[in-house]
């Protein structure tokens, strides 16, 4: 469905230092800096897959999305989406993709949302029957039946995001690009949006590519993640696989009475106060049960909790591991 091979992209950026003389100097002459935004990006995404595309700000996420949606051309390498070269056959390409730009709206600000939908119907040349069916489905799944009669400027962010997503799906796209779809939403709306994306993927076998900083999105939606940093792909694999890699590490928090206890080999201290301790246990060295019995031998345990790595922590340690 989507195939990227050795994609490279370089940008030219103007540079200026602060200060009065620098400002005056740049008035006459400007320095440019070449920034390699993408280095040798290669990956393949199959039909119906849901992929989380993650990385810190400025890592190259949106450049990749822009190349895949045909807005940007690469310097070198090959990008084939749906059997087409996106930038070469823009119109036929984009009629089969849907894009949600997180913070930008495609709805007309001052008219009821349904009017925007009607216009999109004509822009994408959606047959009336298909439009009816899709609209009904989207209205019931996203629960926007009442909302669409209101002008977009009067909607809450959650309502608007749901309408934005609906607007991007009216034409039955085979691929959906979601750029931070849940940014700024409250917990309830976030869950509603996630549920909906999941349902769409299952019902229509839509391929979903999701960029986000919200690890709960990733955990709830995707099976595979691609990590990008400084323009390079650092990691590409199943989320469960990755979790396994980190599953041999457990975080243990203990509340106890008595004196401080000593840590055995395989336990790395995170914090130790009187009556409270938190540490990471490497289960390859010491098993969980052995660790617990060792602690309870030394002190009176009041409460103990053991947790595996969350996606959030994994990403933090990944960022640290790759120094990005």
């Amino acid at each position, binding site marked *: 469905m989507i195939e990227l091979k050795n994609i490279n992209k370089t940008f030219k950026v103007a540079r200026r230092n602060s200060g009065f003389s620098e400002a005056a100097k740049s008035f006459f002459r400007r320095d440019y800096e070449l920034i390699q935004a993408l280095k040798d990006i290669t990956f393949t995404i199959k039909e119906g897959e849901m992929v989380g595309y993650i990385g810190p700000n400025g890592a190259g996420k949106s450049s990749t999305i*822009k190349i895949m949606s045909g807005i940007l*051309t690469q310097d070198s390498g090959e990008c084939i989406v749906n059997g087409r070269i996106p*930038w070469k056959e823009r*119109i036929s390409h984009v009629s089969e993709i849907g894009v949600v730009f997180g913070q930008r709206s495609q709805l007309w600000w*001052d008219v009821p949302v349904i009017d925007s939908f009607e216009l999109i119907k004509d822009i994408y040349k959606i047959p009336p029957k298909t439009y009816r069916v899709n609209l009904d489905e989207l209205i019931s799944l996203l629960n926007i039946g009442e909302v669409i009669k209101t002008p977009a400027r009067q909607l809450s962010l959650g309502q608007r995001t749901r309408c934005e997503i609906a607007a991007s799906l009216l034409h039955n796209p085979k691929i959906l690009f979601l750029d931070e779809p849940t940014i700024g939403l409250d917990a309830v709306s976030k869950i509603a949006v996630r549920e909906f994306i999941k349902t769409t993927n299952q019902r229509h076998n839509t391929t979903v590519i999701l960029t986000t900083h919200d690890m709960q999105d990733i955990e709830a939606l995707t099976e595979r993640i691609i990590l990008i940093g400084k323009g390079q792909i650092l990691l590409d694999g199943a989320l469960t696989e990755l979790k396994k890699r980190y599953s041999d590490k457990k975080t243990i928090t203990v509340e106890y009475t008595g004196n401080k206890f000593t840590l055995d080999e395989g336990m790395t201290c995170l914090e130790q106060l009187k009556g409270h301790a938190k540490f990471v246990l490497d289960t390859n060295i010491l098993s969980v049960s052995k660790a617990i019995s060792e602690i309870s031998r030394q002190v009176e345990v009041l409460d103990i909790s053991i947790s595996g790595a969350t996606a959030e922590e994994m990403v933090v340690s990944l960022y640290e591991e790759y120094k990005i």
Partner: protein
Amino acid sequence: MRLYLKYLSIHLKSQMQYKTSFLLTLLGQFWSSFAMFLGIYFMFSRFQSVEGYTYSQVLLCFAIVLMAFSLAECLVRGFDTFSVIISNGEFDRIMVRPRNEMFQVLASKVELSRLGRLIQATIILLYALPSSGIVWTFPKILTLILMVFGGIAVFSGLFVVYASLCFFTIEGLEFINIFTDGGREFGRYPFSIYGNNVLKFFTFIVPLALFQYYPFLYLIGKVTNPLYMLTPILCFFFLLPCYFLWRLGVSHYKSTGS
């Protein structure tokens, strides 16, 4: 076309949400072109004629230019405000929609308050048509229509040039105003009054004189050669280089993404 009407109806609905603003803008547009008219009126009450052109002839010329400009502005306003579309990222949205980019930019903005100028132009034209002393035969009427359409073509082309340059930089494009706003301001008078060099410039480089000066001579009977009547047709060729510049701009955008 149907899609354009759809866009138009959405624009109408949006603008009707802000009626006061709409009316005031309309009034402002009307007044600013009325001020241009006053400029002509006061100049002629002092000088009576300029280089052999009478007051009502100049008014006719002014009305035609203003009409062409305001129609072009209504139609291709999206290109005129293109720097906004580029800088707020709206062009990305245009690129992910399965329609011609130019059409989408065209349809992205239709400001009906610009009709203020058009109303002004119509009133002046209605006054100048009979008072200019021209006998309105069929060829003269045709010339008049050609002039307006040729003018729409040239002004639209200039707006497209402006928008195309926005792909490369959004700084310093105000120099295009010399030709758009300047064309409207200085096109009040037949371009010949500015001297030969200016006339040549507006004939061969930015062909404003092709719809304004030459057919105007035919209209007021200073020349009788019917070829003069057809010069506005040449204006449409001006659209070709404008279109190529636009293509160039889009491909630049695709390679830099900003």
